[in-house]
Structures are given as C-alpha cells and as structure tokens.
C-alpha cells in the first residue's frame, strides 16, 4: 500500500494516497470542482484553469486537476478568491467563444454552457473576441469542426493523439492565433482523420460535432413514394436510453423499435442480422485462410486475419499499414452488408423498386457516415446505405416527434432481416466479434460448442486495451483434420493507439496470431463516436454489462443458428464466400497517404 497523505479541503479532513490530485481528493469528499479541459479518458493538461483552488498560505491558485496533494495542505475550493478568479476565467472563455447558444448543435449538452449557467454569467463586460472570422469545416461526411465554438482545451488533440494515435488534430500557432488545426489546415476530409468521432464525444462544446442528416431522413419519411428502411446497430439499443433520460446501461431494444415505427420508418430491421451474416462470412474466411496458409502453404491471403467491421479502423489501417492490407478481412461491415442486401434481397422480397427505397442506419458511430459514402459501397447498383444517423441523432428525432420514450411498449423488429442472435448483440462490445466468431468457427470445425461455460468466452471480454486468448482445437470433424491439436491464437484490441501497438508487433513478426479483432473506439462500438455524451470508462462498463445481459437473455446465441441467416443462404446467397456473397458482402481496400 502506498503512503497516505492527510489534508483538509474546505475544513474537512481527508486522507488519500500519495500522488492523488486535489481534484480526486475533493471527489472523495463529494466536493465538486468544475473542470473543462479535464477528462477521465485523457492525460492531464491543466490548461483551462477553471478548476483553480486556493492553497492556504500560497499567493497563487493552483489547478486542482494537475496538482498532487501534500501532507498538511489546506485547500479552499469556494473561497472568495477562487470564486472571483473562476468567474473571470469563465467570462474569458465566453468572450472568445461564439456563445450564440441557440444556434449551436450542442445547445443543451455543453459543459461551458452548464458552467456559465452555474455561475450565472449574465454580463458580458469583456470585449467579444469571437469576431465571426472563424471558419467552419463541414466538408467531411462525418464531422463538422466549428472553430468559433472552440475553447482550446485540447481534449480533442489529446484524444486524437493519445487515445487514437491518429494525430489528425493538433495545435497550431500561438497567442491569440492559437487554434486546433489539421495538417496545413486542410479540411478534415482530406487528412488522416479516421472519422471515429472520439474527438466529438470528448469535446466539451459544439466545436466538433457530427454531420447531421436528420432533415434528409425526415424528408424521406415524408415522401410517400419512398420506402424507408431502417437498420439499428447493436450498441444503439444500450446507449439510446442515456439520451432520453434513462440510466446508463438501460436496455431499450423493444422501445427503440417501437419509437422507430412511430417515427414513420416503413421497415424496422436489425443490423444484428448482418452481424450474424458477418460471422458466417468472416468465420469461413478465417478457416479458409488457416487451411491455405497451414496446409497448402499459400500465403497470398496471409495470417493473421484482422476484422473489418469498424470503418474508423479500416481507414486507419489504410493510412498506417498500407503494405499489410491483405491481412484485413474482405468482409464488409454489418452496416454495409445490410445496405447491399436491403436494396437487393429485401427489396425483391417486399416487392419494392430499389430506386424507391431509402436505406437509413442508426449507428453508435460517426465513421459509418463516411463508410456509407465510400464509392465502392454501391454493390446494389445504388448507394447501399443512404443516410447514417448516430445514436444521438435518433434521440433528437424521437424528442422532435414528441414521443414519451420511457412509456413506449416493447415491439419486435420486422421480418425478414430483423432476426438476430446473442452472438450479433455482443458485436457492440470490444471482444464481441472475436467471441461470436469463435462460437461459430469452433462448432463448424469440431461439431461441438466452444468449451466455455454458457458460451461465455470471458478471456476476450473486458476493457483491458489489448487482450490475448488461445483456444485449443481438439477432436475435429474429418474435414478439418489439419486443425487437430492446433491452438488458435487470438488478440483483441480497442482504441486505435492499442491497434497500432498490436499491428506494429505483427509487422515486426514479434507475435504470431491467427485472428485479431480491432475496434477503433475505446470499449468498441458501445463507446463509439456517435454514442451519448459523456462517455467514460464508468459508463462504458455499464453499457458493456447491458450488452452481455442482452446476449445472455437471447434464445439463440450462435450466428449460424439464426434461421433468417440459414434462409438467406438457401434462397439467395448460396454459401459463405460464394459468388453472390462475394459480390454483395465483400469489399476491397486502398492504400492511403499519410498526408
């Protein structure tokens, strides 16, 4: 146990471990100190100075977030000195901020607005420095950057650099010119940005927000000639509640389906259906690659195989490891598989001309907006997915429609392409794709269920940044003799900084994995850039518990047992990796420059 330090905060004694910051010590006493540049996911910056507190006996105020405690310290968090200084700082921030709140996308969920309200900043004595000369970059399909709303806390920079190791955003210039910028101030669309949207969920204000397509979706719904299909990703059902006044980790699948029907979507379907399909395709691809590499010595499609469902990860990979693209599974993401099938298989089934179909997806993700825009995602003959909305945008639509969400009845998805299994549900958590793939692949090879209690492959679960697991394959079916006794080595990573670490090891041949699951966002999709704000580890954990609870409550827990999946192979696709699958469900990748 480390040394304990005793101090007083506002006259109350507290004892904390050495190295604790004043902010953390105050938290222990349930004393709130306001913060802006501080975020639990990120390293300490100490630059907004909103959290300054008084150390009795010192002339200067110190930043509570950045100052470790000392024995005998006496801290005041609400002295006159502190209050005046803090008020000045909030006023300063407001003076350089475009505080036209009613015109801001984050109106109602803004940390600066909350603080201004808390301190009742009703005056505007300081000179307005937000002259309106700032630029708005809205050319990216995913992210809008409005510098006039920026308070230069650098949370986005730390997110992009530390958490994601992308480095698309950085600080440029100094003094009054200092701003958050991109490489040579190019548009976000043109730089290494992966569109993951982590900057968006870490931004305290409206400086970085998703590009919204709400109005276009309303237009489509209102158009009687259009059949509007909606698909919902797995992580949406455990995140949406937070935007609609429910607790983090609330499972709202039935209510969400009910709400979507009331909003006027013609068919309410489930991305989880294509998540199951992804497992069939990707699981088969893995087995195919194992055979080619281990038996036939054919390394043209090398191992390890990496997952490809996370479009932020895909773009990161294309920029960062352009000579390793053949490691990536050719499977499209569930969203794009769904889009391609909606305008072919599904359109045919319900007898709608695909030209009159509008395909909408609700995603926990901003990169999905970009993915839907990729030129190769038109295998149905049209744009496979027309509009992508985030979890947050769906909540906005629900509120706009005046729907009392918590009172809604639970409804079921439409059929077909509405059925799913627990294996698809867990796609929303880091490790979920791995677990789902193992549940199916192991059974294909051995004819038996994976040897884990209740099918719960716990070694691949959790929030640890990089996790490894291996599964011993024994007593295989005759077709898979070459895998007898083999140990399938798997790795799971989430957050692109972790992804980089793992892939650099693969590149340097320091590790020998067969299969790697990577999700761009910390926690996986449940912590995606399109999820409710705030998101932090405490909340991620709750959403994760909800996902595994949802899985445990499903009757079907293995992708290959999804009857609609069985049906689509029988009626339409033939077999995994077959000709039709290849055309609609698989894709290719492109080398991208760093600059």
């Amino acid at each position, binding site marked *: 146990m480390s040394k304990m330090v005793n101090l007083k905060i506002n006259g109350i004694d507290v004892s904390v471990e050495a190295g604790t910051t004043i902010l953390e010590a105050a938290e222990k006493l349930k004393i709130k100190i306001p913060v802006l540049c501080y975020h639990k996911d990120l390293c*300490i*910056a*100490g*630059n*907004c*100075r*909103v959290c*300054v507190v008084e150390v009795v006996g010192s*002339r*200067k*105020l110190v*930043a509570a977030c*950045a*100052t*470790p405690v000392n024995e005998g310290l006496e801290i005041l968090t609400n002295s006159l*000195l502190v209050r*005046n*200084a803090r008020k*000045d*700082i909030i006023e*300063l*921030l407001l*003076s*350089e901020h475009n505080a036209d709140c009613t015109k801001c996308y984050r109106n109602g969920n803004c940390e600066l607005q909350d603080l201004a309200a808390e301190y009742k900043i009703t005056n505007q*004595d*300081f*000179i307005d*420095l937000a002259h309106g000369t700032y630029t708005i970059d809205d050319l990216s399909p995913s992210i809008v950057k409005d510098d006039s709303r920026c*308070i*230069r806390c*650098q949370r986005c920079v730390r997110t992009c650099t530390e958490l994601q190791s992308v480095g698309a955003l*950085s*600080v440029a*210039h*100094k*003094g*009054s*010119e*200092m701003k958050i910028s991109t490489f040579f101030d190019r548009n976000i669309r043109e730089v290494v940005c992966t569109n993951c949207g982590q900057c968006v969920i870490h931004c305290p204000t409206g400086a970085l927000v998703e590009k919204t397509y709400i109005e276009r979706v309303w237009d489509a719904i209102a158009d009687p000639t259009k059949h509007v299909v909606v698909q919902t990703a797995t992580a949406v059902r455990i995140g949406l509640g937070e935007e609609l006044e429910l607790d983090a980790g609330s499972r709202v699948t039935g209510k969400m389906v009910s709400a979507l029907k009331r909003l006027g979507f013609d068919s309410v379907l489930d991305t989880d259906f294509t998540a199951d399909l992804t497992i069939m395709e990707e699981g088969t691809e893995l087995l195919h690659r194992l055979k080619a590499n281990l038996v036939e010595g054919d390394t043209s499609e090398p191992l390890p195989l990496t997952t490809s469902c996370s479009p932020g990860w895909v773009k990161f990979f294309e920029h960062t490891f352009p000579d390793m693209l053949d490691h990536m599974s050719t499977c499209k993401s569930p969203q794009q598989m769904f889009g391609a099938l909606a305008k072919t298989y599904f359109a045919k089934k319900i007898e709608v001309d695909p030209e009159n179909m509008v395909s909408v997806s609700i995603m926990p993700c901003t990169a999905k907006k970009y993915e839907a825009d990729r030129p190769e995602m038109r295998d149905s003959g049209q744009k496979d997915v027309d509009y992508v909305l985030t979890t947050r945008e769906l909540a906005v639509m629900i509120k706009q429609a005046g729907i009392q969400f918590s009172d809604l009845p639970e409804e079921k998805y439409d059929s077909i392409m509405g059925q799913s299994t627990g294996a698809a549900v867990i796609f929303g958590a880091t490790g979920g794709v791995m677990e789902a793939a193992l549940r199916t692949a192991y059974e294909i090879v051995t004819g038996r269920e994976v040897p884990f209690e209740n099918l719960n492959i716990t070694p691949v679960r959790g929030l640890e940044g990089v996790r490894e697991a291996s599964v011993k394959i024994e007593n295989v079916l005759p077709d898979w003799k070459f895998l007898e006794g083999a140990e399938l080595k798997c790795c799971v990573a989430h957050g692109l900084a972790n992804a980089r670490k793992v892939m650099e090891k693969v590149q340097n041949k320091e590790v020998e994995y067969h299969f790697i699951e990577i999700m761009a966002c910390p926690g996986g999709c449940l912590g995606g850039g399109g999820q409710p704000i705030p998101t932090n580890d405490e909340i991620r954990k709750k959403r994760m518990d909800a996902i595994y609870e949802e899985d445990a409550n499903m009757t079907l827990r293995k992708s290959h047992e999804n009857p609609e999946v069985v049906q689509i192979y029988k009626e339409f696709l033939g077999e995994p990796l077959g000709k039709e699958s290849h055309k609609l469900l698989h894709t290719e990748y492109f080398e991208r420059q760093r600059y």
Partner: protein
Amino acid sequence: MGKNMLKRIDLIFKNEHDTDEILSKIFKRSNDDLINDLIGSGLKGRGGAGFPTGLKWKLTSEAKDDEKYVICNADEGEPGTFKDREILTQVPHKVLTGMAVCGRIIGAKKGFIYLRGEYNFLKPHLNEEIDKFHAILKKLGSDFRIEIFSGSGAYICGEESSLMESMEGKRGEPRNKPPFPTEKGYLGKPTVINNVETLAHAWTIFKYGPKKFRDLGVQDSRGSKLFSVSGDTPIAGIYELELGMSLQDFVDDFGDDDCKAVQVGGAAGFCVPRKKFRETAIGYQGKLTGISLPTGGSMMLFNSSRSMYNVLKNYLEFFEEESCGQCTPCRVGCQQLLEGIEAVKRGEKHQHYLNKLLRLSETMKMTAKCGLGQSVANSFSSIVENFREEMIY
C-alpha cells in the same frame, strides 16, 4: 548622468582564460564541498525567477536516475535584455565550465545550450569554443559533452519546461509543475537548467571562493548581476552592478535627468514611476521591508517624452502574440487587456473598465499555468496604476 555613483563590478567579463587550471582544481574537490560553496555564495538564478542555484544542483544530484542533463538557457528573449549574447561572445568558456562542473556534481554526461534562434550567428564561434573545451575535458578524464540546440523563435521557450518540450521535438508549451525539472526535466530525466549568466557566476565562485561573491549585494540578494540598460539613457549598454541598489541611484547614474519611469525586468516586469524610485530596490523579494524588484537584467528607462500608453500597448501586443495560447488566463487575458486599453483610449469603454481589467490582471497573475503567464500582467497593473491618466486621455 553617468555619474558613476554605483560601483562597476568586473567579474563576468574579466579576461581570464585559465580554464584547464580551474577545472583540474575543481575536479579534485568533492561534490559536497562544491555545492556548499555554491550555497554559501548565495547565488540565485539570474534569469529572473531567483531560485537558489546551489539548492537546484543539490536537489538534482540527489535525484536517483542513471541519466541526467544540464541545460544552459540561452533563449534570451525578454524584451530589453541582451546580456547573455555578450557573455556567450566574450566569455563562453566560463559558461561551459559552469556546465561541466554541474554535470560532474549531479552525474550528467550531457549538456545542452538552448540557443535562441536569433543568436544562430554565434554558433560557429561557440562550436569552436566547445571543441576546445571538450579537449580540456578529455585531458582531465571527463567525458562530459556539450551540444547546441537551436530554438525557433518562440518567446515562451525561454520558460524552462517549454524549452524542454521544444527540445523533445514537441510544441513549446509549459508543463504542469510539479514535477520540477530537478526531478523530471528533459526526456523526463532529472535536469539542471540555468541561465547563461548564472553559469558564468559559478566560475567566479569556484575560482575565488564564495566569499568574494557573497560580499557583494545585500541580504537575500547576493553578488553582482549584469544589467541591460536601454531606453532614454545616454549610456545604454551592459553593466555589471551589485544587487540591492536603489532605483534612485540607478536612475541618477544612468538616466537623462528627465526619467519618469523605469521598466524593471522587461515586458514581463514592473514599471516604477519617478515617485517610487527611492523606495524601490533591485533584487530578489526578501525579508526586508520595502519594494524589491527582481529582474533578469532588463532596465528600460523612459523620459517625459514617452507615452506610457504606447509603452504598455507595445508590451501587450508582444504578449498577445507570444503567449503560447495554452491556458485561458494568458491567451484570452492578454487579448482582453490589449483590446481593453484600446477601447478605453477610443472612448468606447468607460474609464471604470480599467478597474475590471485590473481585477483581471490579478486573476491572470494568480491562475496562469506558467511563470510567464503569471507575470504578463505585471506591466499592465503597474503602468495602469501609476499612469492611469495616460491610459484615458
């Protein structure tokens, strides 16, 4: 004017080139002995902040790490100071000696001179001196090596933690303190960072013993110091004077008989009006009563032909551009102070607005992240308080 009332000291630029001899003597002494001399001399950092040099070396020598560094801060960027350039031109071997002794004491094998980008013209000369110095070190069996690192022109990089960030290839922005460089400095390793002049004084102290240095100056402000004298003075230049002098004596000596204010410590320092010359001493803040102003060496004199509004505006324009922009009080505060005095001057804001800005300047001093941010408002508050009418009319 030029009355030579204040004693001119000749230690720093004294023509001495016995580096071999001095170093070999020093290297024979124990580290404790050397540190005690330094502490005993009362030498404090000559960059302006005034941290006791001996204590800094002692703390770093006690830090446990295999790798440590010595950095000479030659990013002389404070408006109105130009003494370090002269030291590096005339007596670089004294600075190099200071670094090598520091390296020996704290256990560093590597030293850097962080040279202001605008001083790159000094590089060929300095490199020659460094080569000669390395040869001496080799002879004495020391493998300490010194390298020059060129700055790129940001004022903030004179702040020690920004300087280290800059050396690490990052954006020059101050770090949170603690940890201090003595514990975690360059590359996260214990580091001594000293001003050029501080290191040159170390030569004097090690050569002549601590007493010679300590006998100069006053309580809490020992020794001599270089002053860069500029502005309305007939004898602008660099002078080595004793610390503790009264500003009145200084003005009598260097002024043009019409001096109305002295800016002590550069743009980040304090402006002293004529009526306070007598009660103001130049030295580190100490236990003695009365105003005691520290300075990195910059002394700017202004006579009655000068508009203090223009002086202040000039400083604020400088800071508005040279703040790193990281923390709110400094980034936005500087802009507000500048635009604020302009608005008052134009009559767009009532003169009472100056009170709001004075309060803001107090907030900036108390809450900014680094030493620079905490001192940018000094010139504002001291000029506005003493020359308020010049701000308004």
